[in-house]
Structures are given as structure tokens and as C-alpha cells.
């Protein structure tokens, strides 16, 4: 039987044997290098490699029992498929003898790996699954770095509440997916709390090709501003067809889509003034000084060091986005926790992570007892003259908010959203 | 009691009338030759009888039970077996399996298991003289062998009425005589009524049929004992190809 030989071969390929006292610390990761999450997966890969490099070369390794041991990164391609995730995670744990597993991208894939990780009592760190529900399942070993979905549009609402108290009519139009619905729920609650009036609340299916019907109803609701989105493709479509239907509002914030460069490439100046929430953007002002002010421990490369390491790691000249940053920050969190616990035993490290609180180029990091991320606040960016400018929160902002955003008629005449 | 009875059966395709008000009457154990040039409506008639088409007008009875709207498989269960003008074997299966299908789902359906069916198949395969080919894949047979296999498959259905569509076309006279002889034997021992359909009046019909039905432009032109039918001037005209003046 052919398979037998292939499998035997596969074993021999298996990693080195693990000796009592750690000669090194290994991070395992079933990365999404192909399939539907390939983009985010590549970013995460670069982010992790960058920070591992920093730990080994700048930080000098992980300090356990008084001696510094090197950090290693072992990953496979999970093809963004759940069957593959489970088998790769087990291989990482049993064959490659990794000390921690970083979850693949998306809440779904993160969940599919959870039972295996729990079985082996392996620490399972989540940098790509934003669902709050993961942390309501009573898993012992999952810890989250990415901010929970419910908080994505909270900052945006605070911002508008502050800059334009007269803008009361908000429209919510999100993708009908697990993640986007959670963002919508969070936004709805917060909007009510701030006394906004929700004049429109609808979703549209994944893979939608024409939003016209939804948008014409939305137009009829006459909102002051719009919160919505889900993935990149529908966000792009959303903005474009708003232009086609000449729907003009004071502000438009789209999750997942607006923060990416490809968004502006595809839409040109139609994207002027459009905003998007992000876990991290190049330009955020997190630094050792800020950390000192807030009384937080600082670790990791500065923002520009990170960008440099990231580009080296991927060997491409592309900018890291928040997928990269959160994955990188997760490496730093793990390293600190290991040093805190002075051990690589998952249970001890898990406990250390519970009490860990620090700041890096990615911003604050702190989890509650369920492992859910609570210490990281998001930023809001806006397209201004083809550049991404962070406009909220004030402590992270790199520029002023342009408000209200130009109408599509003005944009057609070439107007850009650069504040004077 | 008639085995099969057609009452003023008419089948149209769009404009043209393929079968036009045909009455037909077949007794148990009869052997009949249906004759007619290409396009005279023979095959359509067969398809109406075996249920592939339902007629626009008229009714079909089998053993005095109306079957006009009965699906083909039910008619097979009642005892209607047929072969096709262009043979339609189950190509990827062996000759034995092909014939076994007939045994399994014919009049014996439900009362016969696979093993018995295979035994029965062997018997009929031997009868038509294909024994040495029985484990060959049906698709690989010669046209003549395929026709013989179809006859065996139809016989394995244990029908009361066997409709054969050009079963002897393209056969060597020697084979035809053998087949005709064979059919006669089976007819005797199993009391099957047989209808052989051929384009031309030929030794097959002469040797085989007790009665001849001549089709022409979808109508039944002549229905008489073989000897008379052959002498009938209308028939002679048709086969000399002279135009048939309308009456």
C-alpha cells in the first residue's frame, strides 16, 4: 500500500526529539498560506517571523532558569481548511514538540483546532479569531491577542459623538457573517448608549455582487452616517455603489475593507474621507514613552523596526497591516509570559498570561480570566488625499479628522479629504 | 381473449402523424410479421406498445387490461419483452449480466434472486449460442452478437409477448434460419407470442410469421395470413414502390 511508505517518510520528516531542559522554545503555527485566508495568513507569517527575529537577535532570546534560550518558529500551510488544521496542530504538538500553538486565521478555524489543543493541554494563542463566543466555551488554554469583534465600531461612535453632537441618525449595514454580526451587535449597543438613533439596520449575504437594493432603501432612511462592512470585497462594493446611487453622508466607516491599500487602489478618490477601524495602523504613536506614562511594561521593536523586520521576513516590499501586528505582538506576549512563569509548561505560562499586562508597538495587551483580550484599544483611520491617517483615539492619532466627508459630486470634481 | 389489443391508436409528432388509427389484435402464442418501409411507423408502433410513447388517441390493452398509460417497466412485468432496432446493450457489463437483468426484472421480478437469474441467463445464452462469449463485455460484441444477446435478454424476461425490432437485419441467411428455427422452438415450449418487425418481406417473415401486418405511412395497410398477404396487390405495389393512390 503506497500510503504506508508515504506516511513512514512523513514520520522521518518529523522534528527533532525534545530533551528535558529546554534547549529552545518553539512556536507552532498552522498558517493560512493558501485558500481563502491566504492574504491575512501571509501578513501573520511576516509578523511572527519579524518578532521572533527581534527576540533572538535584539532581545537575546527567552530567559528561563537564568539562561537565554533561542526562540524557534515552526509552521505549515493549513489551506484555510478545517480538516487540515486539526491534523497539522497534532503534528506540531506530538512530532515537532512545540511549546505553544498559534491559532490559524478566522474564528472558525481557531475553533476547529481548539479540541486538539485542549486534548494535549497545549497553550493555544488566538491572533485571528475575533469572535467573543470562543471565550464563552470554557476552553482552558486559549488566549486572545486580537481585540474582540464587539469593539470594532465603538471608537468610531465615540468619535462622532464628540465631533458632531447633531449627527444622530446612524445606519448599520453589515455582512451577514458570524464576525460582522458581532461587530454590528457591539455597535448597536454602544450607539444606543450614546443616544444615537438607528434609522437603518440590515445585513447582506457573503459573496454579494450587487448591493443596489439594500443601498436604495438605506438612502431612503436618510442617515447622518453609516457603519458597516464585513470583508474586503463587499466593503469595496459598498463604497462604489454608494457613489453610483449618489448617497452622501457625513461619515462612512467600513470594517476590514477601508484600512487596506487595495481599497484606495480600486476606488481612487471615491474612497476619500472613508474611515475604517483597525487593531493597528502604521503611524500609531505607541512607544516606550507612552508605555511609561501609562505605567505599562514595554517590550518589542519600535514601529519602524517592526516594519523593517517584517519586510525582511517576507522578502517583499509590502507594508504590515494589523494581521501582522497582532500576530507579532502575540510572540512578545508569549515570551514575557514564559519569562514570568520561568517555565515552558503550558499551564504555568497560561497562568502567567492571565496576570500579564504590557505595551508594544501594537498597543496595550491584557486578557481577562477567560482569555479574552481586553487591554487593546482599536484606532480609526481615514483616507486623506490617498494617505491613511489615524484620526482616533487622540492619543494615537496622526492627524485631524476630515468631517463631514466630501460628497461624491465634489469627489468627482477631484476634491480630497485633506483638512486645512 | 386477445393477448394484445390496439384500438384506433394514433401517435403524432408535431405535425406529422407517425401512427394513424391503427387497430391490432394479437392472440397468445401467435407469431406475426410486421412489414413496412423505413418511416412507415413500425418502430413508433413498438414504442407505443412498450410504453416509451403514450398515444394521443386510442387505447392499448394487454390481456384485456388497459395499459395505455402504464409506464414501460410495469408493462415488462406484465409480460412485454422487446429488442431494439439499433441494439442497446449495457455496454460495460458482461453478456451474462446483461441477460440476467432481463431475468431479474421481467415477469419473474421479485420472485427470483440474482443467482437463479444468472442460471437462467446461462440457459438463454446457450440457446442463442453465445455461451463462449458470456463473460465478455457486451460493448465488445459484434452487431450480430449484440442482436442475439438482446434476444436472449428479452427471452430471459419470460415474456408473454416478444417484440423484435429488425432482430435479423444484417444477418447471414444461415444465421437467420438458425434464429428462426430457434424462435419457433421457444415459441412452442414457452407459448410466447412473437412479433418480428422487418423492412422487407424476406425469408425471415416467410419462414416465421403466420400472419403479416403491412404498415404504410403510419396506417395499417394489410393484415392477413402470410400466404394471402404476399399475394395482395397493395402490398406488391408498395414493394414495387409505385405511388399508392389515395382512397
Amino acid at each position, binding site marked *: *500500500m*503506497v*500510503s*504506508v511508505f*508515504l*506516511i513512514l517518510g*512523513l*514520520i522521518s520528516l518529523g522534528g527533532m526529539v525534545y530533551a528535558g531542559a529546554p534547549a529552545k522554545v518553539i512556536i507552532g503555527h498552522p498558517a493560512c*498560506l*493558501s485558500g481563502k485566508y491566504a492574504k491575512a495568513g501571509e501578513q501573520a507569517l511576516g509578523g511572527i517571523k519579524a518578532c521572533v527575529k527581534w527576540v533572538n537577535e535584539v532581545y537575546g532570546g527567552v530567559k528561563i532558569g537564568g539562561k537565554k534560550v533561542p526562540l524557534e518558529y515552526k509552521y505549515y*500551510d493549513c*489551506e484555510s481548511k478545517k*480538516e*487540515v488544521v*486539526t*491534523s*497539522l*496542530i*497534532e*503534528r506540531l504538538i*506530538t*512530532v515537532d514538540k512545540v511549546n505553544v500553538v498559534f491559532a490559524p486565521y478566522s474564528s*472558525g478555524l481557531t*475553533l*476547529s483546532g481548539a*479540541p*486538539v489543543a*485542549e486534548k494535549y493541554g497545549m497553550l493555544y494563542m488566538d491572533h485571528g479569531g475575533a469572535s467573543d*463566543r*470562543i471565550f464563552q*466555551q*470554557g476552553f482552558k488554554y486559549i488566549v486572545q491577542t486580537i481585540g474582540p469583534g464587539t469593539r470594532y465600531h465603538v471608537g468610531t461612535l465615540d468619535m462622532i459623538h464628540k465631533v458632531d453632537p447633531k449627527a444622530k441618525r446612524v445606519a448599520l449595514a453589515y455582512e*451577514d*457573517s*458570524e464576525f460582522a*454580526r458581532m461587530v454590528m451587535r457591539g455597535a448597536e449597543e454602544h450607539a444606543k448608549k450614546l443616544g444615537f438613533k438607528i434609522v437603518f439596520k440590515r*445585513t447582506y*449575504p*457573503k459573496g454579494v455582487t450587487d448591493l443596489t437594493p439594500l443601498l436604495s432603501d438605506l438612502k431612503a432612511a436618510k442617515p447622518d452616517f453609516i457603519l458597516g462592512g464585513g470583508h474586503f470585497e463587499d466593503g469595496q462594493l459598498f463604497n462604489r455603489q454608494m457613489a453610483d446611487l449618489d448617497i452622501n453622508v457625513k461619515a462612512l466607516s467600513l470594517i476590514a475593507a477601508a484600512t487596506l491599500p487595495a481599497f484606495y487602489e480600486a476606488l481612487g478618490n471615491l474612497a476619500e474621507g472613508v474611515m475604517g477601524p483597525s487593531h493597528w495602523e502604521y503611524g500609531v504613536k505607541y512607544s516606550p514613552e507612552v508605555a511609561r506614562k501609562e505605567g505599562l511594561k514595554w517590550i518589542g521593536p519600535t514601529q519602524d523596526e517592526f516594519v523593517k523586520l517584517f519586510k525582511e521576513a517576507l522578502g517583499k516590499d509590502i507594508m504590515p497591516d494589523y494581521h501582522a501586528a497582532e500576530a507579532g505582538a502575540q510572540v512578545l506576549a508569549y515570551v514575557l509570559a514564559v519569562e514570568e512563569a520561568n517555565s515552558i509548561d503550558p499551564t504555568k505560562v497560561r497562568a502567567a498570561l492571565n496576570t500579564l499586562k504590557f505595551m508594544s508597538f501594537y498597543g496595550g495587551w491584557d486578557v481577562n480570566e477567560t482569555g479574552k483580550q481586553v487591554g487593546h484599544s482599536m484606532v480609526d483611520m481615514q483616507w486623506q488625499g490617498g494617505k491613511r491617517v489615524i484620526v482616533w483615539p487622540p492619543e494615537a492619532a496622526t492627524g485631524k479628522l476630515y468631517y463631514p466627508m466630501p460628497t461624491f459630486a465634489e469627489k468627482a470634481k477631484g476634491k480630497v479629504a485633506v483638512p486645512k | 381473449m386477445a393477448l394484445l389489443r390496439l384500438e384506433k391508436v394514433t401517435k403524432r409528432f408535431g405535425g406529422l402523424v407517425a401512427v394513424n388509427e391503427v387497430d391490432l389484435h394479437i392472440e397468445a402464442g401467435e407469431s406475426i410479421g410486421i412489414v413496412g418501409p423505413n418511416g412507415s411507423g413500425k418502430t413508433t408502433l413498438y414504442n407505443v406498445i412498450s410504453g*416509451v410513447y403514450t398515444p394521443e388517441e386510442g387505447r392499448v390493452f394487454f390481456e384485456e387490461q388497459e395499459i395505455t398509460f402504464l*409506464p414501460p*417497466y410495469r408493462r415488462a412485468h406484465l409480460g412485454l419483452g*422487446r429488442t431494439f432496432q439499433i441494439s442497446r*446493450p*449495457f*455496454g*460495460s*457489463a458482461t453478456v451474462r*449480466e446483461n441477460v*440476467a*437483468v*432481463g431475468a*431479474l*426484472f*421481467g415477469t419473474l*421480478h421479485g420472485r427470483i*434472486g*440474482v443467482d437463479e*437469474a444468472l442460471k437462467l441467463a446461462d440457459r438463454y445464452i446457450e440457446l442463442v449460442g453465445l455461451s463462449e462469449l458470456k463473460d465478455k463485455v457486451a460493448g465488445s460484441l459484434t452487431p450480430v452478437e449484440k442482436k442475439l444477446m438482446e434476444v436472449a*435478454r428479452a427471452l430471459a424476461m419470460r415474456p408473454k409477448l416478444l417484440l423484435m425490432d429488425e432482430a435479423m437485419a444484417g444477418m447471414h441467411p444461415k444465421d437467420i434460419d438458425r434464429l428462426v428455427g430457434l424462435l419457433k422452438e421457444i415459441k412452442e415450449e414457452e407459448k410466447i407470442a412473437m412479433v418480428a418487425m422487418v423492412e422487407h418481406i424476406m425469408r425471415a417473415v416467410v419462414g416465421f410469421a403466420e400472419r403479416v401486418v403491412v404498415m404504410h405511412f403510419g396506417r395499417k395497410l394489410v393484415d392477413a395470413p402470410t400466404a394471402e398477404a404476399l399475394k395482395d396487390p397493395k402490398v406488391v405495389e408498395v414493394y414495387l414502390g409505385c405511388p399508392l393512390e389515395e382512397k
Partner: protein
Amino acid sequence: MKGSKYLPIIPVYIGYLVLFLIARGMPGMWQLMAMLVFYCAVGQAFNIFFGMTGYVNFGYVAFLALGVYGMALAIHYFHQFSWLGLGIVIIGLLLAMVMAGLLSLVVGAVALRLGGAYFAIATIGVNEGFRYLIEGAKIWGGSEGIIFSKQMTEAFGREMANRLSTLWADISVLLIAAVAALITLYFIKGKIGYALMALREDEGAAKVMGINVTKYKLIAFVTSALLAGLIGAMAWGLKLTYVFPPEVFDISYTVEAIVIVMLGGAGTLLGPVVGGLLYGLAKYWLTVILPGFQLLIFAPIIIVIVVAFPEGVVGVLKRRVKGTALEPFIL
């Protein structure tokens, strides 16, 4: 000699046994073997309809999906009755079979009257339509699906829940595959097999030969759907403990099933096993060697198979061993 009928099951079971032994014997092999068994099982179940009738059911994955929902709902609604114990899983399996069975009956009754092309389109319609119904009418949690890890822990306790997900779910998929193989053999060797063969080769002739084609197509269709429901309930439900509609109604799984069956040999008994192993391992290795190129490699393979050797690996093998001592074992 009746016994000889069942010889062909031997190589199939040897294959499954080898997988099981590797999984138990070698560290870190369990989940990989589980993946291979999943592919074999899906192939074996899919083959019963697709392979034996020659009808392409693009909506096949919908039956797996309903299986997952069956398990999810059972655990979601019954978890507080922990005295039911593993009975909850049984309920889940029954629910999975009932749901998959009902859908297959409805679809079968409608679509099986249609010709191959219309049938294929109709089944795509069923799969997509069903998914949008769930999302649009907010059935079973709508697009947010159901996550039931917590309920499993509450129902069975952390230890047991985890064993169910990481051990028993996989073992039951293996058992389902074994049963599917047995059913396949029973069909091929029996009256049903003859009927399906006949209608696959020439539906018109089959009718005239006395075969109630709709009935036999329906038998194969429903059987195949029930097995799919069970596989879904175990391999996606109990094992992964969550269900999101877009993931379980993903048509690409039907495509994988098609490739597996065609590769191994449509309508054969051993085919799905061979196809499942070849496909699963090839896939696993490609993820290591050429990430991102899987499809570009598999698509041409499909074309080559359908054009050059539609009978698949086992089909070829069957011709090779004809007349040798191996013949009675290869089917």
C-alpha cells in the same frame, strides 16, 4: 459459492485497518489518519449514488451539512439532561439521519425525474437555496451558526467531551466508512446493483427491461445521503464542535468527493478507498511542498481522468487482474 461474494471487502478493510493501526501506533498520526479516513468515507458514501448511477449531485455537501446541524441541535437542546449521557450523541445521529434523509427524499422525488444536466443544476440550487434559507430566515442561529463546545463539556464533562472530539468522532467515521463499504458491496452484488448498472448504461433500455428506474435511483440517493448525514454529524459536528453555514455548505467538498471517486474508480468498491488515500496524501504533501498550487494540479487531473481513463485506478486494476487469483478480491 455464496461466501466468495464477500471477498472483495477484504482489501477495503485491510486498508482501513492499516490506517487505524498507523493512527494508534505512531505519534502525531491520529489526526492525519482521521483526515484520510474522512476522505475515504465521503468517497465511499458519495460513490453509492454518483458512482453507481452516473448522476452528478453537486449539492451533496448539503447532506453533510444537515448531519452537522443534527448533532449540533441535539447537543444544543439536550445538553442539560446530562442523565442522557452518550444518549445525546445517539439522538444527534438519529437527528442527522432524519434530516439528511428527509431532504434527500424531497430532492430525490423532485430532481430524480430530471435528466442528468437538469439534475446537476437542481442539486446546486438545493444546496445554495438551503443555505440562504437558513441565513435569511435566521434558522438554527442563521449565519452565526452554533458553537457547542461549552454544551458538550456540560453534558459529558471536560474529559469525555474532549475524548469524543479527538478520538471517538474519528473512530466512528471509520466505522461509517466500513458500513458504507458493506452496503456498496451488497448493492453491487444484488438486484439493486443490476438495476443501477442498467440505468447508468442506458436508462431507456432499463425501463423497457422492467426496471423502475426512479425507485432504484431514489434508493441509492437516500442511502448515500443518510451516510453523508452520519459523516457530517461525526467528522464536522462532534469533532469540531461548531457549525457556520458558509463553511458546511461549501460546494468545494462535493468537488473533492467527485475527484476522489473518479480517481479511484466510479462504481467500484475499492475505488473510493484508493481515491481517498491518493487524494488525501497528495493534498497533505502539496500543502508542505507547493502551498497554493493544489487546485492547479488537481483540475488537469480531473480532465485527464474523464478523457483518458474514466474507469479510474481500480477500474484499470480490475482489467489487469482479470483471470488471475486476485480477481475475486478486486471490485
